[in-house]
């Protein structure tokens, strides 16, 4: 895998139970607040493993509302296919001063700017 390659796959996300923070499952099996730390599952088998891990952590009351979404890794950064996930990984597009984008843990790819 080279740094310039584009991989497509699924990312597992949830909200942390105690505070609702948006988190993404990482390689180490921990949850990251930053989408760029997420593990991208490219194979169905790996995706199933992610889902299973998510269910476990839901049962362990670490996170809630687990689901996966389509994304690509471009040059080391995650690009979520849907605008909703880009907003979740950054914060509201109308308040750049709030959320992950303002706290140094935002995704690399901006959600669409205001119209």
């Amino acid at each position, binding site marked *: 895998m080279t740094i310039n390659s584009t991989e497509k796959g699924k990312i597992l996300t949830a*909200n942390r*139970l*105690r*505070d*609702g*923070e*948006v988190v993404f499952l990482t390689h180490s099996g921990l949850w990251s607040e930053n989408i760029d730390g997420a593990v991208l599952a490219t194979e169905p088998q790996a995706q199933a493993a992610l889902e299973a891990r998510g269910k476990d952590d*839901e049962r*362990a*009351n670490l996170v*809630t*509302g687990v689901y996966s979404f389509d994304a690509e890794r471009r040059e080391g950064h995650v690009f979520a*296919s*849907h*605008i*909703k996930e880009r*907003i*979740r990984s950054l*914060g*509201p*597009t*109308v*308040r750049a001063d*709030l*959320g992950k984008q303002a706290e140094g843990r935002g995704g690399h790819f901006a959600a*669409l700017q*205001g*119209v």
Partner: protein
Amino acid sequence: MYRYDEFDRQFVTERVAQFRDQASRRLSGALTEDEFRPLRLMNGLYLQLHAYMLRIAVPYGTLSSRQLNTLAFIAEKWDRGYGHFTTRQNIQFNWIKLEDTADILSKLAEVEMHAIQTSGNCIRNVTTDQWAGAAADEIADPRPVGELVRQWSSLHPEFSYLPRKFKIAVTGAPNDRAAVKVHDIGLRLHLNDKGERGWEVLVGGGLGRTPVIGVTVRDFLPEHELIAYLEAIMRVYNLYGRRDNKYKARIKILVHELGADKFRAEVEAEYARRPHADTKVEERELQRISAYFAPPKFEKLPRWSATFEEARARNKEFAAWVKTNVAAHRIDGYAIANVSLKPEGGIPGDATADQMRVVADLAQRYAFDEIRVSHHQNLVLPHVRRDDLFAIWKVLNANGLAASNIGLAGDIIACPGLDYCSLATARSIPIAQSISRRFADLNRQHEIGPLRINISGCINACGHHHVGHIGILGLDKKGEEYYQITLGGSSSESASIGTILGPGFAGEDVPDAIEKIVNTYLAHRQPGEEFLAAYRRLGAQPFKEALYAAA
């Protein structure tokens, strides 16, 4: 305004303790999310796009300065320094932690507030006319009945697991500012020949996926029968409302599927069958509640205020604000001052903690300590002396709260949309901001005249787009946001549902589209004819031509 007695206080305190216990059982894992969800929703706690969101009830939109100051405190201590006023006259905070929620509810209970039933499949916060008790056209203040309904519906054991959410609105004025025709139940006050009070009961109105105007099931329900009759309606709905499909679960679908006559017959049969001894509205209880809503001690003032007239003549900005934001009060020498939360390019309904404190302070100094939240997402100082209007305006103006656009193109209703809401299919706020900037020229807004632009970020229609003169609905087409435009909606006493004009638009094209619609109106209007009236006369055709002719 209403003040808690020892029982109300104990009730809310126990409710907080109950939620504290439920939240700690959730955090410890004793409750699963599925088990906890309906419990947290019935306390106004959602899981949203970025965090938990707490929606706090502002019953019938009435706040004291102490309460508004507490909301400011909550915004700063537990949120990010601001709050969002909603189209149900409530306020919501977007960055709440589950582990803080019980503490927030405790803080609210100190000032006689709560988040009970601001969400969930139960009877939601009762809404009313934001000018209640002040409006010149009012028959009577509807808030005592609002409070009666609030208490009756609070933790109602029979009606807490309804097929779907349930919204009640009440109005005491012939000019309907409470949108009673588009509520699950709308109540409208009438007086009969003998001067007795009775309520017109409308059922089955609503917006969302299937917008419907409610049908009248009783023209004149004697006031003492009100709660018993509401129970009959609720019971018919609870037993026979659809539970197989959440999009068909609102009472409007039941009314539609049974037909209005059959539905009415079911309600009347249920009503006739039941004993009402326990649900009769007792005069002494209504009087007890009404006493809290007694008018403030108005001074005897001349109708004409020299201070006010001089300021208006001298200051054009103030004069413009007066023209749109000040409404007639029923008492000579007083006025209703509307505080717009729609500055040019701003986020509709958002207020910072500092702005909340400014308004709270103004209410304390000039407005008998009362503030209202309107379903248009603005604030109101309902009783101010005309003599004080200029002083009030100066403070508002210094704090970004003096946008002179109430009821005009800039006074846009918008739900939080995809920027905050996990149900949304598209963003609403940026659309509102771009339209607001496009129509920034205040002279032009005045030239256009009364215009309601309502924006929803999904089919659930929290932005009431169906009843906007111009409605905008944000949808998702394969991951792209696009916006459908409707024309001709209204939530007034002559309510109507807007008509979809044609294919949707990309977000960046919406302001142009709105401008074409407005220009078409300006080109076709007759002298003094407002947008809605012109649309009703002209129909959709000229607007369609303007929008789609070139395509």
